[in-house]
């Protein structure tokens, strides 16, 4: 027998009441299924960050790591902890680079003031202290030659684009065979030919969105 919204029997005949109640119950069940479950953070956990919060360097991955640890997800905590540490390393690298002089700016009125082996290279080995005596510097992102010739010197001959090399042989094998030794494979070129801060930066650039997406997925029932 159909009942009123308050649960009391209706005082008047209501032939459609049962059908109506059935429709209402079905609709309520459908809404319950459609609504996302509330974050399931157990008591004592700091809780997982949201998608946007996960993208914040150090904070997002740090909070995720703490939450994972408190919930016993140790592999997740380790991964997010590593991501937070990489953010800190990247920030430190940038701060160090800026404090030493992030960009070379000209002093003289030379015809080619950003020339690599007349002006910029001596500065990198002197004032800037980036290259040791006899140490090679490799243009890792924008090459000196090839397509890099179309890039102005003032952009490519800068500290951010120079990777100090451990030896001329390593430098040579990044782009070609060198004195009978073969060119490095793609993995070796990446390992030897890019600065640490760029590798960490790539890791952070990939890790944060992945971590944020993972956090979103874990919120779903």
């Amino acid at each position, binding site marked *: 027998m159909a009942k009123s919204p308050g649960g009391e029997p209706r005082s008047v005949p209501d032939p459609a009441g049962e059908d109506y109640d059935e429709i209402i119950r079905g609709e309520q069940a459908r809404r319950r299924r459609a609504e996302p479950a509330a974050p399931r953070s157990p008591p004592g956990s700091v809780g997982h960050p949201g998608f946007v919060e996960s993208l914040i360097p150090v904070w997002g991955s740090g909070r995720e790591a703490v939450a994972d640890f408190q919930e016993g997800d140790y592999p997740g905590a380790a991964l997010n902890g590593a991501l937070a540490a990489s953010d800190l390393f990247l920030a430190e690298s940038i701060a160090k680079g800026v404090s030493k002089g992030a960009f070379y700016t000209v002093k003289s009125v030379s015809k080619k003031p950003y020339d690599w082996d007349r002006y910029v290279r*001596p500065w990198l080995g002197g004032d800037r202290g980036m290259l040791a005596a006899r140490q090679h510097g490799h243009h890792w992102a924008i090459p000196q030659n*090839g397509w890099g010739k179309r890039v102005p010197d003032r952009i490519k001959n800068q500290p951010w684009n120079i990777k100090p090399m451990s030896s001329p042989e390593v430098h040579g094998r990044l782009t070609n065979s060198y004195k009978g030794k073969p060119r490095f494979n793609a993995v070796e070129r990446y390992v030897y030919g890019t600065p640490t801060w760029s590798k960490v930066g790539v890791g952070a650039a990939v890790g944060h969105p992945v971590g944020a997406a993972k956090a979103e997925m874990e919120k779903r029932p």
Partner: protein
Amino acid sequence: MNPNAPSFPALAFRRDVGREPVPGRERLALFFNEEDFATSTMWGIERGERLGMELADSDGRCWRVLSVVDLGVVGSFWERVLRFLLRQSLHGLDQELVEIEPLTLDQLKARACASIQANPDDWRDDEAIAGEVDPPREEQDLLDELKAKAMAAQTLHQLMNAIYEEEFPD
């Protein structure tokens, strides 16, 4: 023009005050004009790279720097800000110079070549040695080519052009 001051451009031989300085080793420097000569970075001032420096000027006269006084940061406001942020502030210098016995062109060329040979880091084309485009070059061959260009110069301006790839008129 002040007869008691060098004319520019001028080629200079200064002390080696790099990260791993070698006593007695000279480094080359090129000064384009008076303003260029009258400024330096703090790094150079702190290490005294101008003290004792000898200049060969465009009039064939030679000078030695006896003393250097730091006059503080120079430049327009925004240039100072930019250079401060880039850690390359320029300081004005008050330098006391004394004219010394002039050097012949041959003496200048020999001294410049000795400096080039002693400071390969200042002239290295890393990518040429690594063979990025053409077969790898030997560093000494590149230095020898540069020195040969220097030795072929008939005037001081040609010598500066050969070493620094500039275009000073004869």
